[in-house]
């Protein structure tokens, strides 16, 4: 116990000394955080410093093994680090599909060679990744994907089209699901491969979102050469890894519902805007709606905590990620609708100085995608009904 207390004290002191003041402010949009990668230009010197200092300790990926550049922290230490960062409202130094998604998959399923090649640049924020799963004909039915990888001995030649690939135009590498065997049950002929986005035959076309920003892309794969050593896990075993990875993604997206560090809670904002009347929010309808959301949000937070604690002690239901993803994203959508109602006509301003450059409506619109990306709410409910409840 005292070890952990020492760790907390040291961490607190280090963060105080090393986290620049401007990195202790809330992240306002998708473009605001540091995403890293070869093409990244830092938004400020503070942003660069903060990434550099955290990456040096491996604290961009605190619980990854030290030998690949991670922080090597235990679960308890990782939790303390997060708490101490939250305490000073520190931003995460890096937003990264590498850290959230492909990194854990490589660590769990990848060869030693892949770990040495890919994990350290992920930790340092040098390589930015994108996720090539969805295709025009394969969204919810992901296993129906058609992008074909033909075995050429020491490499594959890949042809096909991916869609809704977030930040494909800004990413350096893609982790991509491809069909390596068309003659077996659809889940059994899929492989997870990695390739550089500058490989000949890879091209992207950005697609604008309804929020007007943060484009995702169509990605075209035209005779793309992928080395065999860039397959994660076994050939034709990609579906198992994809499912593992989706679990990670779901837990992460489910967390979008939570109030970001340094941001005022919904109820605090409501008090600011509407004021109190005898200690009660001065609008009884808003008060009822906000209270209902608040109760659910708190209950959700406790549930997320309980799921983690149960998993640590080896109990609990599998597939909890489906519930967290479903509930968390629906909560976030409700929160965004309440914010729109709370700020009234100010929340409708799309551009210009009349009101915050349209940050609110853009974030509201973007939240609509939370219950679609990473598997729709309907698919999560199907997973719960089938796998947990044994229905159908």
């Amino acid at each position: 116990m005292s070890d952990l207390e020492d760790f907390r004290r040291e961490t607190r002191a280090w963060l105080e000394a090393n986290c620049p003041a401007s990195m202790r402010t809330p992240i306002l949009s998708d473009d605001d955080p540091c995403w890293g990668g070869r093409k990244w230009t830092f938004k400020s010197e503070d942003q660069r410093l903060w990434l550099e200092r955290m990456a040096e300790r491996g604290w961009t990926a605190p619980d990854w093994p030290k030998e690949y550049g991670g922080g090597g922290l235990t679960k308890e230490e990782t939790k303390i680090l997060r708490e101490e960062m939250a305490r000073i409202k520190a931003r995460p130094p890096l937003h990264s599909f590498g850290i959230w998604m492909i990194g854990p998959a490589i660590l769990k399923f990848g060869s030693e060679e892949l770990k040495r090649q890919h994990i350290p640049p992920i930790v340092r924020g040098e390589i930015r990744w994108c996720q090539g799963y969805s295709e025009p004909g394969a969204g919810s039915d992901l296993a129906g994907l058609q992008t074909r990888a033909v075995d050429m001995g020491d490499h594959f030649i890949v042809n096909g089209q991916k869609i809704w690939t977030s930040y494909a135009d800004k990413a350096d590498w893609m982790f991509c699901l491809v069909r390596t065997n068309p003659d077996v049950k659809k889940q059994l002929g899929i492989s997870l491969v990695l390739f550089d986005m500058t490989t000949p035959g890879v091209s992207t076309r950005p697609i604008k979102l309804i929020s007007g920003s943060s484009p995702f892309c169509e990605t075209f794969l035209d005779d793309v050469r992928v080395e065999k050593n860039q397959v994660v896990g076994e050939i034709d075993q990609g579906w198992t890894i994809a499912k593992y990875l989706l679990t990670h993604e779901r837990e992460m997206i489910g967390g979008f519902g939570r109030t970001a560090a340094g941001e005022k809670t919904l109820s605090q904002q409501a008090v600011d805007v509407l004021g109190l009347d005898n200690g009660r929010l001065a609008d009884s309808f808003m008060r009822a709606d906000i209270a209902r959301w608040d109760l659910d949000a708190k209950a959700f937070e406790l549930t997320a905590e309980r799921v983690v604690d149960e998993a640590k002690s080896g109990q609990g239901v599998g597939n909890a990620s489906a519930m967290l993803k479903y509930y968390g994203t629906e909560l976030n959508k409700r929160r965004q609708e309440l914010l729109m109602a709370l700020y009234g006509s100010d929340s409708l301003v799309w551009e210009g100085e009349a009101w915050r450059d349209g940050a609110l409506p853009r974030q509201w619109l973007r939240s609509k995608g939370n219950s679609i990306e990473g598997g729709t709410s309907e698919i999560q409910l199907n997973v719960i009904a089938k796998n947990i409840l044994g229905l159908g």
Partner: protein
Amino acid sequence: MARLVLNEEQQMLKDSAQGFLRERAPISQLRRLRDERDEKGYSQALWSAMVEMGFTGILLPEEFGGTGFGHVGMGQIGEQVGRNLSASPLFATAVLGASAIDLAGNEQQKQDLLPRIAAGELLTALAVDERARHTPDWVETQAERRNEGFVLNGEKRYVVDGHIADKLIVSARTAGSASERDGITLLIVDADADGVEIERTIMVDSRNAAVVRLSGVRVDAGAVLGEVDNGYPLLERLLDIGNAHIAAELLGIAQEAFERTVQYLKERKQFGVLIGSFQGLQHRAAHLWSEIELVKSVVLAALSALDQGSADAAQLASLAKAKASEVAQLATNEAVQMHGGIGMTDEFDIGLFIKRARPLQQLFGDYRYHADRYAALSGY
């Protein structure tokens, strides 16, 4: 109560509005206005064609160049406007402006203004709200008596069509303090008068709105619309009219978003079958269909009550606005969700419906405002 069906004349108006707007003011027109950052925010050619169709005179008596078809008739056009997301001055001028002057104008004002409204030569805007959440009795804008007239100071936001209007109808305080209902007066102010500053604001729906600032604006006694100090009942009546017509437009939005979604459920395949074959989606679509049926009824009842001058018109207007807002929100959210990834793209039209629905929901009071008002009018 009048029967809840359209008469022949109203049905004809609905049919012709449907064909006309689909052809002359489709969604692609709104996109073009948005992408080209059109200064006026509407097509002059469309407006002229609307005038020719008689849309601007639907609520006006024949003696001033109108047809007197009434609110049910006008609501049929509004519904089609919702379906096509057609941008035009119709609501601010031919509903709000026309009603305001027809209801409360003196002979002089009617003679001066109504024929020009019917002819599409004069655009109006109703400048009411000063707070972000609709609070029509919160009026800080001052109209101080000076000689025979008034001097205005204050700020209104976000005024629909504020930056294209020739005349602003402004609620201002001539007595009492903010949030008192007595002491409010409606005044007609020239948009180009000295001291009027108008800043266009670009909103989420790419439609027209503006912040209007008044500093030392002088008007004479002839600018008063209705009674001095007793403008609030008139304002409430105008807002009821506005809300019933907004509800009609929201109904159009909900229906169109819904129908496009049902169509998609019949086209998109996943897991080897049409997604419309999944019961999880079927039940939600069926539920939404039921809700939309309810909205059709309340919108027609509210419009019809306005035409009849029924005692419960205010209550029905709040019912229609509340229910239409609730269901349009559900319909547009479901539309995006059931389209999956493509529903999140700017290239695809469904997102434009969600962007238009919210401003309409909030304009002149959202679901909560009108549920509260409905309760108050019902005596609880």
